[in-house]
């Protein structure tokens, strides 16, 4: 493990992505297996709680079922308590690093982009995580949806400077 500190690179990465890797440590690739395991458990929860079900998403947006509200609501409550505890008790990572939090800045993208994302969410019944689980259940055509989600991301990057933020 060696410490790396590329400030400029970090700023580019954190530009507006919420998925920032805060760790300043560099590990061998196999350290990533633990994230694969968390993802694996997460995928099983997705399927078993039918969070990735197109029907559950339709029920949610038609106010026909409490299920998805219960899932998201209780997930947020547990998340809030967890983050509070990490800050309060100053819990470190398993490598002894301090857990870092960054405040998000508001920009118009959260409104415009949010609305567009919502349209896509309701039409496909998928967000970027569930697409992977949907493919896993054998609906291979969702690979096409995933591909066009990547295309959409690329097109956003291409026109980013011209879009209102």
């Amino acid at each position, binding site marked *: 493990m060696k410490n790396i500190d590329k400030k400029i690179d970090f700023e580019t*990465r954190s530009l507006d*992505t*919420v*998925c920032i*890797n805060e*760790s300043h440590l560099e590990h061998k690739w196999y350290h*990533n297996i*633990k*994230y*694969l395991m968390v*993802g*694996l*458990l997460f*995928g099983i*929860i*997705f*399927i*078993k709680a039918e969070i990735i079900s*197109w*029907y559950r998403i*339709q029920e949610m947006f*038609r106010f026909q079922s409490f299920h*998805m509200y*219960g*899932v998201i609501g*209780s997930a947020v409550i*547990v*998340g809030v308590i967890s983050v509070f505890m*990490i800050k309060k008790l100053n*819990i470190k*990572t*398993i490598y002894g*690093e301090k857990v870092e939090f960054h405040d*998000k*800045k*508001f920009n118009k993208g*959260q*409104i415009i*982009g*949010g609305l567009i*994302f*919502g*349209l*896509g969410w*309701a*039409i496909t019944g998928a*967000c*970027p*995580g569930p697409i*992977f689980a949907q*493919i896993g259940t054998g609906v291979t055509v969702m690979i096409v*949806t*995933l591909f*066009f*989600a990547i295309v*959409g*991301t*690329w097109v956003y*990057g291409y026109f*980013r400077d011209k879009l209102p933020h």
Partner: protein
Amino acid sequence: MLEFLKQPWPWYIAGPLVGLTVPALLILGNKNFGISANLRHACAACLPANISFFKYDWKKEIWNIFFAVGILIGGVIAFSFLANPNPIIINENLRTELASYGITNINGMLPQEIFSWENLFTIKGFLMMVVGGFMIGFGSRYAGGCTSGHAISGLSNLQLPSLIATCCFFIGGLFMANIILPIILSL
């Protein structure tokens, strides 16, 4: 035990487990839960095209790609070994509405009468799989995150921008599900 696991899991089991993903990733290595970033990493890895938004060291974020592959494998495992043997129960009003569009087979996670390779080149299939996918990718990056990054991760850290984004996700979803989707499904 296996029989129990095969049942659909209730929200009060699944929700807290999803929430625990946030501290799990933070404690395992200071990682912020957010899956849509993988779409950006895919762009950065495959076709950065000299766009500054994609010029960064994506290899540093490879943990997230492992995470996404894990979700896919989890999907395979749950589908192969923990599949619910009973038919999926959906709201009667929704069932009636879908039947009026000719969607009667409600097995699986997605209606097979729409989400199939054969339908990809119909107008309905194109709008739902191709345009839908595009909107997910474009919208989530424009918003700076998706359901995991904003609605779960961001709200867990009490971020106002994430609350705004989450509300907009819902407004967009309500509009699509109730106003536009019925038209598309009638095509």
